[in-house]
């Protein structure tokens, strides 16, 4: 049996008196694209933030290749986090930095690569994402779609093994949404990273996903492929997909 790359076991998290995750169980496998869907405010972003280490669970365990994340040594935890990239819902680009500097930042701060190699890597990613010619511009000077691509370039520049996408198409028109979806699919195939996507783009996102998980009331209420969804008689799932309040 394949050991999941990341596994949530009975993970609970509350903010003040409001529970967000409530005994959540979820397995994420290496090289797959898993999409987490669910109503706004059900803790989808919180789930991603647990993986990247921005939020810590109150109870339960998160396993990384079978080992509890909390029990990993500082070196192992750092090396796991170095495999991760996070694409924020609102891009979180540094507005005081040029596009080139934004994309180069993770490499520059890591101080592992010499300047010319950093430049080579950044320009390569910019070229792959159609961003050549805007190196000196600032995020505020770009359109929403371009900013998304810059955020994606920044997420991919470190050659991550796992990329976490937090609603990557929020605020985009249907054409650009489609472009971002195919971009994720294309680059996932090309770079073979594991993608965890939080999305509301139903049903379009089902074409990108290899597996879909429905998060509701702090737990996973459904997990399966696109075919499983179509065959499912789950009331919660069907109500959510049809936009009914449940």
């Amino acid at each position, binding site marked *: 049996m394949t050991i999941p790359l990341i596994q949530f076991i009975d993970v609970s998290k509350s903010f003040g008196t409001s529970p967000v995750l409530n005994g959540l169980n979820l397995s994420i496998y290496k090289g797959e694209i898993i999409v987490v869907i669910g109503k706004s405010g059900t803790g989808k972003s919180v789930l991603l933030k647990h993986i*990247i*280490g*921005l939020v810590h669970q109150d109870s339960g365990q998160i396993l990384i290749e079978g080992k509890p994340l909390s029990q990993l040594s500082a070196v192992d935890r*750092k090396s796991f*986090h*170095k495999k*991760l*990239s*996070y694409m*924020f819902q*609102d891009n*979180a*680009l*540094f*507005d*005081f930095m040029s596009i080139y500097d934004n994309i180069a*930042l*993770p490499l520059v*701060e*890591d*101080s592992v690569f010499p300047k010319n190699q950093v430049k080579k890597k950044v320009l390569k990613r910019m070229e792959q994402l159609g961003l050549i010619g805007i190196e000196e511009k600032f995020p505020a000077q770009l359109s929403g779609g371009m900013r998304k691509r810059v955020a994606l370039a920044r997420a991919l520049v*470190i050659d991550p093994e796992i990329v976490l996408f937090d609603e990557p198409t929020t605020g985009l028109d249907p054409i650009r949404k489609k472009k971002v979806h195919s971009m994720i699919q294309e680059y996932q195939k090309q770079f073979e990273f594991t993608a965890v996507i939080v999305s509301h783009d139903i049903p379009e996102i089902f074409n990108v996903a290899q597996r879909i998980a429905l998060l509701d009331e702090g737990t996973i209420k459904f997990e399966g492929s696109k075919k499983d969804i179509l065959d499912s008689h789950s009331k919660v799932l069907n109500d959510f997909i049809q936009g009914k309040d449940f």
Partner: protein
Amino acid sequence: MLIKFIENFGKKFLSMLESMGRAILFFLAGMMHMFTLPIQFAKIIDHTWFIGSKSIFVIILTGLFTGMVLGLQGYYSLVKVGSEAALGAAVALTLISELGPVFTAIMVTARAGSSMTAEIGIMRISEQIDALKTMHINPVRFLFSPRIIAAVISFPLLTALFDVVGIFGGFISGSIMLGINQHVYMDTVIQSINIHDINIGFYKAFAFAVVTTTICCYRGYYTHLYSGFGARGVSLSTTNAVVQSCISIFVFDYIITFFWI
């Protein structure tokens, strides 16, 4: 009623202790990361340019008018007791050990400190600080440490500039406008100042640099905890940072003067 009052008081006291602990840890982390390699030269130069070079004009302007007012007020006070010849000494001593460091710190806080809080606060509410963390970049090292080094470099230099321009301002109103002998003015300036006074001025400038930069960066960094999210949260953090910095300048001014005079 009394229990409720005690409960509220206890809550506020605990929250104040928590806040102080957080501020101290923030300060210590910033200090520690000043020395972690690689040294962030580019950022230090950039912030020194922003805090230091870009404050030169405002420091010259305030220094000049402070010196001119001191010269004017000092002359009319001293002339009553027939000691107007001591104007140079009065202006120089007041500026070097007291007004120079205090006014410089207040002006730089108003100009650069407020901008630090707003910039870091906006980074906080737009998830840019979280983005740094996801890129394994320590936000305190990235945002606070270079600024504190830049402030420690800039504050004493700006204070020295303020002092020199202020003494010249006193010379304009005392000698050129009110007729005190120019040589007497300059001679009393030189005779009255000793290294102890200059040192006190620099110790104050150094302390104000550390205190105000810490407060301004801390307020921006934790804007979501104290002032809430959004534009109003950032504006409130900025106001609080400037007010607290100014109060701290006066408190530390008293403490340093008390111990070093």
